[in-house]
Protein backbone atom coordinates (compact mmCIF):
# COMPACT_ATOMS: atom_id res chain seq x y z
CA UNK A 1 0.00 0.00 0.00
CA UNK A 2 3.00 2.29 0.61
CA UNK A 3 3.67 2.82 -3.11
CA UNK A 4 0.00 3.28 -3.89
CA UNK A 5 -0.95 6.67 -5.30
CA UNK A 6 -4.32 8.35 -5.27
CA UNK A 7 -4.61 8.11 -9.06
CA UNK A 8 -3.74 4.41 -9.16
CA UNK A 9 -6.12 3.75 -6.26
CA UNK A 10 -9.02 5.56 -7.92
CA UNK A 11 -8.21 3.90 -11.24
CA UNK A 12 -8.33 0.45 -9.64
CA UNK A 13 -11.50 1.39 -7.75
CA UNK A 14 -13.24 2.41 -10.96
CA UNK A 15 -12.20 -0.86 -12.57
CA UNK A 16 -13.56 -2.81 -9.60
CA UNK A 17 -16.92 -1.05 -9.72
CA UNK A 18 -17.15 -1.55 -13.48
CA UNK A 19 -16.54 -5.26 -12.93
CA UNK A 20 -19.13 -5.44 -10.17
CA UNK A 21 -21.66 -3.47 -12.21
CA UNK A 22 -21.20 -5.87 -15.10
CA UNK A 23 -22.76 -8.60 -12.94
CA UNK A 24 -20.31 -11.12 -14.29
CA UNK A 25 -18.35 -11.66 -11.08
CA UNK A 26 -19.15 -14.76 -9.05
CA UNK A 27 -19.67 -14.77 -5.29
CA UNK A 28 -16.05 -15.36 -4.37
CA UNK A 29 -14.75 -12.74 -6.81
CA UNK A 30 -17.42 -10.26 -5.73
CA UNK A 31 -16.50 -10.58 -2.09
CA UNK A 32 -12.78 -10.28 -2.89
CA UNK A 33 -13.40 -7.19 -5.06
CA UNK A 34 -15.60 -5.57 -2.42
CA UNK A 35 -12.92 -6.19 0.21
CA UNK A 36 -10.20 -4.73 -2.02
CA UNK A 37 -12.43 -1.80 -2.97
CA UNK A 38 -13.10 -0.95 0.66
CA UNK A 39 -9.38 -0.86 1.33
CA UNK A 40 -8.90 1.48 -1.62
CA UNK A 41 -11.75 3.71 -0.46
CA UNK A 42 -10.12 3.99 2.96
CA UNK A 43 -6.81 4.88 1.34
CA UNK A 44 -8.38 7.53 -0.91
CA UNK A 45 -10.37 8.93 2.00
CA UNK A 46 -7.17 9.29 4.02
CA UNK A 47 -5.49 11.05 1.09
CA UNK A 48 -8.40 13.47 0.75
CA UNK A 49 -8.41 13.96 4.49
CA UNK A 50 -4.73 14.96 4.29
CA UNK A 51 -5.56 17.83 1.93
CA UNK A 52 -8.82 18.69 3.63
CA UNK A 53 -7.46 20.21 6.82
CA UNK A 54 -7.17 23.74 5.43
CA UNK A 55 -4.35 25.36 3.53
CA UNK A 56 -1.07 25.41 5.49
CA UNK A 57 1.43 27.98 4.27
CA UNK A 58 5.12 27.66 5.05
CA UNK A 59 8.20 29.42 3.86
CA UNK A 60 10.87 27.19 2.45
CA UNK A 61 13.26 27.94 5.33
CA UNK A 62 10.51 27.12 7.84
CA UNK A 63 9.92 23.75 6.26
CA UNK A 64 13.65 23.05 6.17
CA UNK A 65 13.94 24.03 9.83
CA UNK A 66 11.03 21.76 10.68
CA UNK A 67 12.66 18.84 8.93
CA UNK A 68 16.19 19.43 10.22
CA UNK A 69 15.91 18.88 14.05
CA UNK A 70 15.71 15.13 13.54
CA UNK A 71 19.27 14.97 12.23
CA UNK A 72 21.24 16.12 15.34
CA UNK A 73 19.13 13.90 17.58
CA UNK A 74 19.92 10.83 15.56
CA UNK A 75 23.60 11.74 15.50
CA UNK A 76 23.62 12.15 19.27
CA UNK A 77 22.01 8.81 19.68
Amino acid at each position, binding site marked *: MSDLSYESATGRLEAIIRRLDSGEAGLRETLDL*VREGRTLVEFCASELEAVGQGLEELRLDELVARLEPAAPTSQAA
Partner: protein
Amino acid sequence: MAEPRSLLPPGIPGSELPGPFGVGEYAARLRERLRGFARVQLVGEAVNCRTSRARVFFELRDADGALPCAMWRTELEALGLPEGAPADGAQVVVAGGCDFYPGSRTASPHFSFAVADLRVAGEGDLLAQVERLRRRLAAEGLFAPQKELPRPLLPRTIGVVTGEGGKAGDDVIAGLRRRGWGGRLVWAHAPVQDRHAAPRITRAVQELAALEAVELVIVARGGGSLADLMCFCDETLCRTVALLRVPVIASVGHHTDRTLIDDVAAVSCSTPTHAAEAAVPLHCGEARGALHRAARSLDRHGRRAVLERARALARLSRAPAEHVARHRSRLHQQTRELRAAAVRRVAGERRLTQGRAAALDRQAAAAAGARGVARRAALDGLALALEAHDPERVVRRGYAVVDDRAGTIVTSAAEARRAGAVRLLFRDDAVEATIDRRDTP
Protein backbone atom coordinates in the same frame (compact mmCIF):
# COMPACT_ATOMS: atom_id res chain seq x y z
CA MET B 1 -6.45 77.48 -38.39
CA ALA B 2 -9.76 78.87 -39.61
CA GLU B 3 -12.09 80.78 -37.39
CA PRO B 4 -14.47 78.67 -35.35
CA ARG B 5 -17.65 77.93 -37.27
CA SER B 6 -20.77 79.62 -36.07
CA LEU B 7 -22.60 76.26 -35.70
CA LEU B 8 -20.15 75.08 -33.08
CA PRO B 9 -21.11 75.59 -29.43
CA PRO B 10 -19.49 78.37 -27.48
CA GLY B 11 -16.18 77.61 -25.76
CA ILE B 12 -15.39 77.17 -22.06
CA PRO B 13 -16.22 80.39 -20.26
CA GLY B 14 -13.11 82.12 -19.03
CA SER B 15 -10.72 80.10 -21.21
CA GLU B 16 -8.22 82.15 -23.16
CA LEU B 17 -7.43 79.39 -25.61
CA PRO B 18 -8.77 79.72 -29.15
CA GLY B 19 -11.56 77.50 -30.35
CA PRO B 20 -13.50 75.40 -30.14
CA PHE B 21 -12.49 73.89 -33.50
CA GLY B 22 -13.91 70.79 -35.12
CA VAL B 23 -11.74 67.78 -34.14
CA GLY B 24 -11.57 66.43 -37.68
CA GLU B 25 -10.20 69.68 -38.90
CA TYR B 26 -7.67 69.69 -36.08
CA ALA B 27 -6.67 66.04 -36.78
CA ALA B 28 -6.12 66.86 -40.45
CA ARG B 29 -3.90 69.76 -39.48
CA LEU B 30 -2.02 67.49 -37.07
CA ARG B 31 -1.37 65.01 -39.88
CA GLU B 32 0.02 67.81 -42.02
CA ARG B 33 2.25 68.91 -39.18
CA LEU B 34 3.51 65.36 -38.45
CA ARG B 35 4.17 64.66 -42.08
CA GLY B 36 6.19 67.84 -42.10
CA PHE B 37 8.63 66.40 -39.56
CA ALA B 38 12.04 65.57 -40.93
CA ARG B 39 12.29 62.12 -42.44
CA VAL B 40 14.96 60.07 -40.59
CA GLN B 41 16.48 56.66 -40.00
CA LEU B 42 15.74 54.88 -36.71
CA VAL B 43 17.25 51.77 -35.15
CA GLY B 44 15.71 49.33 -32.67
CA GLU B 45 14.21 45.86 -32.18
CA ALA B 46 11.25 44.96 -34.32
CA VAL B 47 8.71 43.25 -32.07
CA ASN B 48 5.13 42.15 -32.33
CA CYS B 49 5.38 41.89 -36.11
CA ARG B 50 2.07 41.27 -37.88
CA THR B 51 0.88 41.46 -41.43
CA SER B 52 -2.40 42.65 -42.89
CA ARG B 53 -3.57 42.42 -46.47
CA ALA B 54 -1.75 45.56 -47.55
CA ARG B 55 0.64 46.54 -44.80
CA VAL B 56 3.13 45.16 -42.28
CA PHE B 57 3.01 46.47 -38.71
CA PHE B 58 5.57 46.17 -35.94
CA GLU B 59 6.89 48.11 -33.00
CA LEU B 60 10.39 49.47 -33.00
CA ARG B 61 11.77 49.34 -29.48
CA ASP B 62 14.86 50.05 -27.50
CA ALA B 63 15.50 50.51 -23.80
CA ASP B 64 14.20 54.08 -23.79
CA GLY B 65 11.06 53.95 -25.85
CA ALA B 66 9.13 52.61 -28.79
CA LEU B 67 7.28 53.68 -31.92
CA PRO B 68 4.53 51.93 -33.86
CA CYS B 69 5.71 51.35 -37.42
CA ALA B 70 3.85 50.53 -40.62
CA MET B 71 5.15 49.63 -44.05
CA TRP B 72 3.40 48.81 -47.31
CA ARG B 73 3.78 45.14 -48.12
CA THR B 74 4.71 45.94 -51.69
CA GLU B 75 7.63 48.05 -50.50
CA LEU B 76 8.80 45.40 -48.02
CA GLU B 77 8.58 42.63 -50.58
CA ALA B 78 10.53 44.78 -53.04
CA LEU B 79 13.47 44.70 -50.60
CA GLY B 80 13.99 40.96 -51.22
CA LEU B 81 14.45 40.09 -47.55
CA PRO B 82 14.35 36.45 -46.41
CA GLU B 83 10.96 34.87 -45.75
CA GLY B 84 9.46 36.09 -42.48
CA ALA B 85 11.74 39.07 -42.08
CA PRO B 86 11.71 41.16 -40.07
CA ALA B 87 11.32 38.52 -37.33
CA ASP B 88 10.33 39.42 -33.82
CA GLY B 89 13.37 40.65 -31.96
CA ALA B 90 15.36 41.45 -35.04
CA GLN B 91 17.51 44.49 -34.85
CA VAL B 92 16.47 46.70 -37.77
CA VAL B 93 17.15 50.12 -39.22
CA VAL B 94 14.14 51.83 -40.74
CA ALA B 95 13.87 54.93 -42.86
CA GLY B 96 10.76 57.05 -43.09
CA GLY B 97 8.74 59.67 -41.29
CA CYS B 98 5.82 60.30 -39.02
CA ASP B 99 2.34 59.80 -40.29
CA PHE B 100 -1.07 60.14 -38.77
CA TYR B 101 -4.41 58.75 -39.83
CA PRO B 102 -6.96 61.24 -38.55
CA GLY B 103 -9.78 58.72 -38.28
CA SER B 104 -13.42 59.50 -38.95
CA ARG B 105 -16.83 59.30 -37.31
CA THR B 106 -16.56 55.48 -37.50
CA ALA B 107 -12.78 54.85 -37.56
CA SER B 108 -10.17 55.34 -34.84
CA PRO B 109 -7.20 57.62 -35.39
CA HIS B 110 -3.83 56.00 -35.64
CA PHE B 111 -0.27 57.24 -35.39
CA SER B 112 2.59 55.37 -37.03
CA PHE B 113 6.07 55.84 -38.30
CA ALA B 114 5.68 55.23 -42.02
CA VAL B 115 8.60 53.05 -43.05
CA ALA B 116 9.75 53.49 -46.62
CA ASP B 117 12.91 51.38 -46.34
CA LEU B 118 14.27 48.78 -43.94
CA ARG B 119 17.48 46.90 -43.25
CA VAL B 120 17.87 43.93 -40.91
CA ALA B 121 20.82 44.73 -38.67
CA GLY B 122 21.43 41.15 -37.40
CA GLU B 123 20.19 38.75 -34.71
CA GLY B 124 22.03 40.19 -31.77
CA ASP B 125 18.80 41.16 -30.14
CA LEU B 126 16.95 39.72 -27.21
CA LEU B 127 14.35 37.56 -28.90
CA ALA B 128 16.77 36.29 -31.50
CA GLN B 129 19.02 35.07 -28.68
CA VAL B 130 16.08 33.42 -27.02
CA GLU B 131 15.11 31.76 -30.26
CA ARG B 132 18.61 30.38 -30.73
CA LEU B 133 18.63 28.99 -27.20
CA ARG B 134 15.15 27.56 -27.71
CA ARG B 135 16.29 25.69 -30.80
CA ARG B 136 19.36 24.38 -29.00
CA LEU B 137 17.44 23.15 -25.95
CA ALA B 138 14.87 21.54 -28.21
CA ALA B 139 17.59 19.84 -30.22
CA GLU B 140 19.01 18.42 -26.99
CA GLY B 141 15.59 17.00 -26.16
CA LEU B 142 15.25 19.08 -22.99
CA PHE B 143 11.61 19.95 -23.63
CA ALA B 144 10.56 16.35 -23.11
CA PRO B 145 11.75 15.10 -19.66
CA GLN B 146 9.42 17.26 -17.60
CA LYS B 147 6.45 16.29 -19.71
CA GLU B 148 7.19 12.63 -19.13
CA LEU B 149 7.14 12.94 -15.35
CA PRO B 150 4.01 11.56 -13.67
CA ARG B 151 2.03 14.35 -12.07
CA PRO B 152 0.19 13.56 -8.84
CA LEU B 153 -3.56 13.88 -8.99
CA LEU B 154 -3.71 14.94 -5.37
CA PRO B 155 -0.39 16.35 -4.14
CA ARG B 156 -0.05 16.91 -0.41
CA THR B 157 2.76 19.45 -0.64
CA ILE B 158 3.25 22.02 -3.40
CA GLY B 159 6.22 24.35 -3.73
CA VAL B 160 5.75 27.80 -5.24
CA VAL B 161 8.48 30.07 -6.58
CA THR B 162 7.31 33.64 -6.96
CA GLY B 163 8.09 37.19 -5.98
CA GLU B 164 7.39 38.05 -2.37
CA GLY B 165 4.18 39.98 -1.88
CA GLY B 166 3.24 39.72 -5.54
CA LYS B 167 -0.27 39.20 -6.85
CA ALA B 168 0.81 35.94 -8.45
CA GLY B 169 0.98 34.29 -5.00
CA ASP B 170 -2.58 35.36 -4.20
CA ASP B 171 -3.72 33.99 -7.53
CA VAL B 172 -2.08 30.64 -6.80
CA ILE B 173 -3.88 30.42 -3.45
CA ALA B 174 -7.17 31.41 -5.11
CA GLY B 175 -6.73 28.63 -7.68
CA LEU B 176 -5.96 26.06 -5.01
CA ARG B 177 -8.97 27.10 -2.93
CA ARG B 178 -11.14 26.82 -6.04
CA ARG B 179 -10.06 23.19 -6.17
CA GLY B 180 -11.02 22.74 -2.52
CA TRP B 181 -7.40 21.87 -1.82
CA GLY B 182 -6.14 22.35 1.74
CA GLY B 183 -2.69 20.81 1.75
CA ARG B 184 0.73 22.28 2.50
CA LEU B 185 2.05 25.16 0.41
CA VAL B 186 5.76 25.96 0.61
CA TRP B 187 6.80 29.40 -0.57
CA ALA B 188 10.25 29.99 -2.03
CA HIS B 189 10.37 33.68 -2.71
CA ALA B 190 12.79 35.04 -5.28
CA PRO B 191 13.05 38.20 -7.38
CA VAL B 192 11.34 37.56 -10.67
CA GLN B 193 11.86 40.81 -12.56
CA ASP B 194 15.06 40.94 -14.51
CA ARG B 195 17.80 38.92 -16.03
CA HIS B 196 19.81 38.87 -12.78
CA ALA B 197 16.98 37.15 -10.94
CA ALA B 198 17.61 33.90 -12.82
CA PRO B 199 20.20 32.43 -10.39
CA ARG B 200 17.91 33.08 -7.40
CA ILE B 201 14.98 31.46 -9.17
CA THR B 202 17.14 28.50 -10.12
CA ARG B 203 18.27 28.03 -6.53
CA ALA B 204 14.71 28.30 -5.20
CA VAL B 205 13.50 25.66 -7.64
CA GLN B 206 16.38 23.37 -6.75
CA GLU B 207 15.83 23.74 -3.01
CA LEU B 208 12.14 22.98 -3.28
CA ALA B 209 12.76 19.96 -5.47
CA ALA B 210 15.36 18.70 -3.00
CA LEU B 211 12.69 18.27 -0.34
CA GLU B 212 11.17 14.81 -0.43
CA ALA B 213 7.79 16.13 0.64
CA VAL B 214 7.45 18.53 -2.28
CA GLU B 215 5.62 16.74 -5.09
CA LEU B 216 5.22 19.62 -7.49
CA VAL B 217 6.67 23.11 -8.08
CA ILE B 218 4.83 26.10 -9.49
CA VAL B 219 6.91 28.96 -10.90
CA ALA B 220 4.59 31.93 -11.11
CA ARG B 221 4.73 35.50 -12.27
CA GLY B 222 1.95 37.75 -13.39
CA GLY B 223 3.49 38.65 -16.73
CA GLY B 224 5.40 41.71 -17.89
CA SER B 225 7.49 43.06 -20.71
CA LEU B 226 9.91 40.85 -22.52
CA ALA B 227 12.83 42.41 -20.70
CA ASP B 228 11.12 41.65 -17.39
CA LEU B 229 10.59 38.03 -18.37
CA MET B 230 14.12 37.43 -19.67
CA CYS B 231 15.12 35.84 -16.36
CA PHE B 232 12.81 32.93 -17.26
CA CYS B 233 14.76 32.42 -20.48
CA ASP B 234 18.00 31.85 -18.64
CA GLU B 235 19.85 28.81 -19.92
CA THR B 236 20.94 27.50 -16.52
CA LEU B 237 17.45 27.84 -15.09
CA CYS B 238 15.91 26.08 -18.07
CA ARG B 239 18.41 23.22 -18.00
CA THR B 240 17.87 22.85 -14.24
CA VAL B 241 14.11 22.74 -14.60
CA ALA B 242 14.31 20.30 -17.49
CA LEU B 243 16.18 17.77 -15.38
CA LEU B 244 14.31 18.13 -12.06
CA ARG B 245 12.77 15.04 -10.44
CA VAL B 246 9.52 16.85 -9.73
CA PRO B 247 7.20 18.34 -12.33
CA VAL B 248 7.28 22.11 -12.73
CA ILE B 249 4.25 24.13 -13.75
CA ALA B 250 5.24 27.45 -15.29
CA SER B 251 3.05 30.49 -15.32
CA VAL B 252 5.33 33.31 -16.33
CA GLY B 253 4.57 33.62 -19.97
CA HIS B 254 3.00 36.35 -21.94
CA HIS B 255 0.53 35.77 -24.70
CA THR B 256 3.00 37.16 -27.22
CA ASP B 257 6.35 36.45 -25.57
CA ARG B 258 6.71 32.81 -24.65
CA THR B 259 9.62 32.26 -22.28
CA LEU B 260 11.90 29.24 -22.39
CA ILE B 261 10.77 27.95 -19.01
CA ASP B 262 7.32 27.58 -20.59
CA ASP B 263 8.89 25.18 -23.06
CA VAL B 264 10.91 23.06 -20.65
CA ALA B 265 8.28 22.87 -17.90
CA ALA B 266 5.85 19.98 -17.59
CA VAL B 267 2.94 22.34 -18.08
CA SER B 268 2.73 25.97 -19.15
CA CYS B 269 -0.23 28.04 -18.01
CA SER B 270 -1.34 31.51 -18.94
CA THR B 271 -2.10 32.63 -15.38
CA PRO B 272 -1.02 31.65 -11.85
CA THR B 273 -4.63 30.66 -11.10
CA HIS B 274 -4.59 28.20 -13.97
CA ALA B 275 -1.21 26.95 -12.80
CA ALA B 276 -2.70 26.17 -9.38
CA GLU B 277 -5.61 24.34 -10.98
CA ALA B 278 -3.19 22.36 -13.14
CA ALA B 279 -1.20 21.48 -10.01
CA VAL B 280 -4.33 19.94 -8.43
CA PRO B 281 -6.30 18.53 -11.36
CA LEU B 282 -8.79 17.01 -8.98
CA HIS B 283 -11.59 18.97 -7.39
CA CYS B 284 -11.38 17.73 -3.81
CA GLY B 285 -15.07 18.22 -3.02
CA GLU B 286 -16.15 16.37 -6.14
CA ALA B 287 -13.60 13.66 -5.36
CA ARG B 288 -15.11 13.18 -1.91
CA GLY B 289 -18.55 12.86 -3.49
CA ALA B 290 -17.26 10.33 -6.01
CA LEU B 291 -15.54 8.37 -3.27
CA HIS B 292 -18.72 8.32 -1.21
CA ARG B 293 -20.63 7.00 -4.20
CA ALA B 294 -17.97 4.35 -4.79
CA ALA B 295 -18.17 3.26 -1.14
CA ARG B 296 -21.97 2.99 -1.35
CA SER B 297 -21.72 1.04 -4.57
CA LEU B 298 -19.29 -1.40 -2.95
CA ASP B 299 -21.58 -1.86 0.05
CA ARG B 300 -24.55 -2.45 -2.22
CA HIS B 301 -22.68 -5.02 -4.28
CA GLY B 302 -21.39 -6.76 -1.16
CA ARG B 303 -24.83 -6.98 0.43
CA ARG B 304 -26.52 -8.00 -2.78
CA ALA B 305 -23.96 -10.71 -3.47
CA VAL B 306 -24.59 -12.34 -0.09
CA LEU B 307 -28.31 -11.70 0.29
CA GLU B 308 -29.29 -12.78 -3.20
CA ARG B 309 -27.37 -15.99 -2.88
CA ALA B 310 -28.76 -16.61 0.61
CA ARG B 311 -32.26 -16.14 -0.75
CA ALA B 312 -31.51 -18.49 -3.61
CA LEU B 313 -30.21 -21.09 -1.16
CA ALA B 314 -33.29 -20.69 1.01
CA ARG B 315 -35.47 -21.18 -2.04
CA LEU B 316 -33.54 -24.30 -2.97
CA SER B 317 -33.77 -25.70 0.55
CA ARG B 318 -37.53 -25.15 0.63
CA ALA B 319 -38.07 -26.60 -2.79
CA PRO B 320 -38.34 -30.37 -1.93
CA ALA B 321 -40.85 -29.82 0.88
CA GLU B 322 -42.88 -27.52 -1.31
CA HIS B 323 -42.75 -30.10 -4.07
CA VAL B 324 -44.09 -32.83 -1.77
CA ALA B 325 -46.73 -30.50 -0.37
CA ARG B 326 -47.82 -29.61 -3.87
CA HIS B 327 -48.15 -33.25 -4.80
CA ARG B 328 -49.95 -34.09 -1.55
CA SER B 329 -52.39 -31.32 -2.17
CA ARG B 330 -52.93 -32.52 -5.71
CA LEU B 331 -53.51 -36.09 -4.48
CA HIS B 332 -56.03 -34.92 -1.90
CA GLN B 333 -57.82 -33.02 -4.55
CA GLN B 334 -57.87 -35.99 -6.86
CA THR B 335 -59.14 -38.26 -4.04
CA ARG B 336 -61.96 -35.83 -3.32
CA GLU B 337 -62.81 -35.69 -6.97
CA LEU B 338 -62.81 -39.50 -7.18
CA ARG B 339 -65.12 -39.86 -4.18
CA ALA B 340 -67.45 -37.28 -5.50
CA ALA B 341 -67.45 -39.01 -8.87
CA ALA B 342 -68.20 -42.42 -7.22
CA VAL B 343 -71.08 -40.98 -5.22
CA ARG B 344 -72.45 -39.36 -8.30
CA ARG B 345 -72.08 -42.65 -10.21
CA VAL B 346 -73.82 -44.78 -7.49
CA ALA B 347 -76.63 -42.31 -7.19
CA GLY B 348 -77.05 -42.35 -10.89
CA GLU B 349 -76.97 -46.13 -11.05
CA ARG B 350 -79.44 -46.35 -8.18
CA ARG B 351 -81.80 -44.01 -9.92
CA LEU B 352 -81.42 -46.03 -13.08
CA THR B 353 -81.99 -49.38 -11.28
CA GLN B 354 -84.97 -48.07 -9.38
CA GLY B 355 -86.35 -46.84 -12.61
CA ARG B 356 -85.84 -50.22 -14.19
CA ALA B 357 -87.35 -52.06 -11.10
CA ALA B 358 -90.38 -49.86 -11.19
CA ALA B 359 -90.70 -50.54 -14.84
CA LEU B 360 -90.41 -54.29 -14.21
CA ASP B 361 -92.98 -54.13 -11.39
CA ARG B 362 -95.26 -52.33 -13.68
CA GLN B 363 -94.67 -54.91 -16.37
CA ALA B 364 -95.11 -57.81 -13.84
CA ALA B 365 -98.33 -56.44 -12.49
CA ALA B 366 -99.61 -55.96 -15.96
CA ALA B 367 -98.61 -59.52 -16.90
CA ALA B 368 -100.16 -61.13 -13.77
CA GLY B 369 -103.70 -59.80 -14.34
CA ALA B 370 -106.66 -62.36 -14.77
CA ARG B 371 -104.48 -65.41 -15.20
CA GLY B 372 -103.24 -65.05 -11.65
CA VAL B 373 -106.77 -65.24 -10.22
CA ALA B 374 -107.49 -68.56 -11.97
CA ARG B 375 -104.27 -70.07 -10.82
CA ARG B 376 -104.98 -69.05 -7.26
CA ALA B 377 -108.35 -70.86 -7.31
CA ALA B 378 -106.75 -74.06 -8.66
CA LEU B 379 -104.11 -73.86 -6.06
CA ASP B 380 -106.67 -73.53 -3.31
CA GLY B 381 -108.44 -76.63 -4.61
CA LEU B 382 -105.29 -78.66 -4.57
CA ALA B 383 -104.58 -77.51 -1.03
CA LEU B 384 -107.94 -78.73 0.10
CA ALA B 385 -107.38 -82.10 -1.55
CA LEU B 386 -104.05 -82.45 0.03
CA GLU B 387 -105.38 -81.59 3.43
CA ALA B 388 -108.00 -84.35 3.06
CA HIS B 389 -105.22 -86.85 2.79
CA ASP B 390 -103.28 -85.52 5.74
CA PRO B 391 -102.85 -88.47 8.33
CA GLU B 392 -102.83 -86.00 11.19
CA ARG B 393 -106.28 -84.98 10.19
CA VAL B 394 -107.38 -88.65 10.50
CA VAL B 395 -105.74 -88.92 13.89
CA ARG B 396 -107.49 -85.72 14.98
CA ARG B 397 -110.74 -87.46 14.10
CA GLY B 398 -109.96 -90.34 16.64
CA TYR B 399 -107.93 -92.78 14.66
CA ALA B 400 -104.30 -93.89 15.55
CA VAL B 401 -101.26 -94.39 13.41
CA VAL B 402 -98.84 -97.33 14.03
CA ASP B 403 -95.12 -97.16 13.36
CA ASP B 404 -92.19 -99.38 14.25
CA ARG B 405 -90.85 -96.86 16.73
CA ALA B 406 -88.28 -95.95 14.12
CA GLY B 407 -90.70 -93.79 12.23
CA THR B 408 -91.68 -96.33 9.56
CA ILE B 409 -95.45 -96.59 9.31
CA VAL B 410 -96.84 -100.08 9.97
CA THR B 411 -99.79 -100.55 7.71
CA SER B 412 -100.53 -104.24 8.08
CA ALA B 413 -100.75 -106.95 10.70
CA ALA B 414 -97.89 -108.82 9.13
CA GLU B 415 -95.64 -105.79 9.39
CA ALA B 416 -96.80 -105.48 13.03
CA ARG B 417 -95.84 -109.03 13.82
CA ARG B 418 -92.51 -108.68 12.19
CA ALA B 419 -91.86 -105.54 14.06
CA GLY B 420 -92.93 -106.87 17.47
CA ALA B 421 -92.58 -103.56 19.11
CA VAL B 422 -94.64 -100.77 17.78
CA ARG B 423 -95.80 -97.31 18.68
CA LEU B 424 -99.36 -96.07 18.58
CA LEU B 425 -99.64 -92.41 17.63
CA PHE B 426 -102.87 -90.89 19.02
CA ARG B 427 -104.15 -87.35 18.72
CA ASP B 428 -102.80 -86.30 22.03
CA ASP B 429 -99.75 -88.55 22.52
CA ALA B 430 -97.82 -91.67 21.43
CA VAL B 431 -98.03 -95.04 23.27
CA GLU B 432 -95.67 -97.93 22.79
CA ALA B 433 -97.11 -101.44 22.40
CA THR B 434 -95.89 -105.00 21.97
CA ILE B 435 -97.35 -107.55 19.62
CA ASP B 436 -97.95 -110.67 21.66
CA ARG B 437 -98.66 -113.16 19.00
CA ARG B 438 -96.22 -112.84 16.40
CA ASP B 439 -96.85 -115.94 14.58
CA THR B 440 -100.18 -116.06 12.99
CA PRO B 441 -101.52 -118.65 10.68
